[in-house]
């Protein structure tokens, strides 16, 4: 999964010379490691001290992927209940979601289904999701096995990774995979509906959306 042959070209947020801009959102229960995951990817740093995120935060990182410069605006959300109304307001603009749980925390794994319901409620239909089990380096305290995570991801129809923000395991691979999935979705959407680009009308919006198959396994 890791592709080490790619050229490393990263620029700061002030750079305007990029091709695509993707907005990503990291969601999950409190203290599963969302902020540490983002800091490992954006700043390549890690701190063991736990400071709860207040509401919302974001970091910007420009990567070079498949001959294209992609600017990522990665939003970090607070997992606590009291910030829910603030964080769900930013679901609308996100193209990709990183749904994170803690392999040493049974509650965070059980809440994955609830977070999926949140994504369906507040985001666009064509948003992409990746399920991530964090803290895989703590083997002695693991309560969620790799197979259980893989099984849930297959059931939800999303990709699955086990990562460690502390040991920098699979952190870059998660973002690269999410960028690839969004790029493919971008090409498919332009092929599926050529009238969007052929007509060339500015600000034209489709009124009817294709109805996806409803998930029969929802909790309601």
């Amino acid at each position, binding site marked *: 999964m890791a592709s080490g042959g790619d050229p490393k070209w990263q620029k700061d947020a002030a750079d305007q010379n990029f*091709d695509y*801009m993707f907005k990503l959102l990291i969601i999950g229960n409190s203290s599963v490691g969302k902020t540490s995951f983002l800091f490992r990817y954006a700043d390549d740093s890690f701190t063991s001290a736990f400071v709860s995120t207040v*509401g919302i935060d974001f970091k910007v990182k420009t990567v070079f992927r*498949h001959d294209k410069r992609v600017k990522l605006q990665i939003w970090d959300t607070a997992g606590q209940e009291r910030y829910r109304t603030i964080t769900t307001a930013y679901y609308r603009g996100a193209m990709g979601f990183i749904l994170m749980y803690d392999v040493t925390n049974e509650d965070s794994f059980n809440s994955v*289904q609830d977070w999926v319901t949140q994504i369906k409620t507040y985001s*666009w239909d064509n948003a992409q999701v990746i399920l991530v089990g964090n803290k895989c380096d703590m083997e002695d305290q693991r309560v969620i096995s790799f197979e259980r995570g893989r099984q849930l991801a297959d059931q939800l129809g999303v990709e699955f990774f086990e990562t460690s923000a502390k040991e920098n395991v699979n952190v870059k691979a998660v973002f690269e995979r999410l960028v*690839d999935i969004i790029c493919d979705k971008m090409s498919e959407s332009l092929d599926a509906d050529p009238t*969007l680009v052929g007509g060339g009308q500015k600000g034209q919006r489709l009124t009817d959306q294709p109805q996806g198959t409803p998930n029969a*396994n929802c909790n309601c």
Partner: protein
Amino acid sequence: MDFQNRNNTANKFVCPSDRQLALRAKLKAGWSSSKTSEPLRPEEQEAIISVIRRNEEIEVAERQRVGRLVERVEKIKQHAVERGPNCCRLCGDTFGILRPQRILCEDCRQSVCTKCSVDINIRYHTSERSREIWLCRICSETREMWKKSGAWFFKGLPKYDMPRSASATPIPNPGPGSMAGDTRAVQSCHATPTRPARVKKLTIRVNDSSSSSSGHSEPEDEVDTGVGIGVGVVGGGMAKGIASTRLQREDSFRLRAYGSIRSFIDGGERKLSNSFFFNRQQSQRPSECPEYDSVSMSKLRRESSFLRRGSVSSSWSISDSSGSGSNNSGNSQTQSQYQQHQQQLQQHCRDPLLGWLEIAISYREAFHSLDCTMVRARDLPAMDAAGLADPYCKLNIITPEAHTKYTRWQRTKTVHKTRNPEFNETLQFVGVEPEELGNSLIYVALFDDDKYGHDFLGAAKVCLSTVHSTSQYRISVPLGVEDQYSNAAEMAQNWPNGKMLLSLCYNTKRRALVVNVKQCINLMAMDNNGSSDPFVKIQLKPDAHKNKKHKTSVKWRTLNPIYNEEFYFEASPHDLNKEMLILTVWDKDLGKSNDFLGSLQLGAQSKGERLQQWLDCIRLPDHFHEKWHCLAPDNPAH
């Protein structure tokens, strides 16, 4: 969402049972519990607000980036030729055996040639498959725009800011005087006027005039001067800045006088209109002394004379109300006022007079008809090198609300080659009620007839309250400078070939005439799409230095092109007095001969503003002189 239900047999994630729901309610867990969240603390709100502010900076930059993408696609679309199914959509080449091959665009299904099409290789990174399609350049750029702006995700273009136009008129270098520099800066700010904008501006000024607010009208006066309606005086040698200042001051005085007089008229004093008429003449001649004391002294003197006029009017009112006033005493009273008015004018006239106009007005009450006879004019300004003019008059009635009563101005015939024309022409206004005479004016504007533009010569206002049914009212009035009515009279004329903004400068270092073609407006439409592809040819004739002809670039599909292109003609100031600058506007037609759109000539043989700009260019070298000119329909053979 890519969620799929692949494993229906899993029992772990079924809907919770009633006991589980009861247990969740007891423990206050799950989504059904509505916990009252505590409000955010001030430092938490501050942290969230700082994140929101950081995000807004990114969104502003993103909107500008999307605007640049949209502008790029729009520019490519504007260059498309679209000449039919057998021609390339973009460049117009015809397909055939020996011609470029036809390629069908995947998105828009139009035919393009090989060099206007793009081979797109769409790769899918997750499934390792790819496919190739052919797109025209427009659809290829549109696809890239939709990818880069995120419109593919949100099913529509997000908000964007179009980049600022790079073709804005640069501000010319200010001269040594700050007054002239400010005037030119004002001109540059309004160097791209369109006709509806000017009409709207005049409407605003009329409203300001009726409200007698002179403070608001002064900036608009300067703006109006900057548009290019200069003073028609030729040979006076006045700088544009001084003329602009004089225009401001005169308008300010006139508006104040008009406001104070309207308060008298609104009181119902009909006889005081005589004072209104005479005071209008005085207010057109404010003192130009630079000292403040002299200006205020002159103002005080004018107010005292106004009071004296009031007493004379009240005396006439008494004699009129007594009923014993005979016709002879009325005539002597009018004559006495006229002589006093003449004396007042001789005392206060310090400006160069624009001439005199003799007019006879009579009113036929049975037909509600006002007959205005333009008898003659005297001592008009000279408009050409021979010191002559081709004057004609335009008339309208000004209502008490400071509006023109008729949309269409009436006009006399042109009397050629004279500064003392004998018009002897009667123009008739029908539909005039007797009650309107007490509060209305006749406004007369004189223009110089020329095929390149009608220059302003002078204007006069005559009060109608003295017009009676029994006799003809005959008066000789001085001609004043431009105001909003003369501008309205000028814009009522039809000018089909459009206008050109031209800037001239004689560069002493290079010993060359610099011609800056800035822009044209309201050109004629010569193409089938209701537009033209105009460009300008520039030539100097007869040329002692054998300069070559010059051409501007072609501005495609527009009737209001903006050029801002400079050309140099080697010449000496002595030669310029004998030479003529000839500019012609053409519509570019590919494969055919170009269509003629209009022409303009400037030189020593020109008239009016053309002659003034030419002479200013020679007398004041190293300064740019900018003016609007009308284009003529005839083509000078060259």
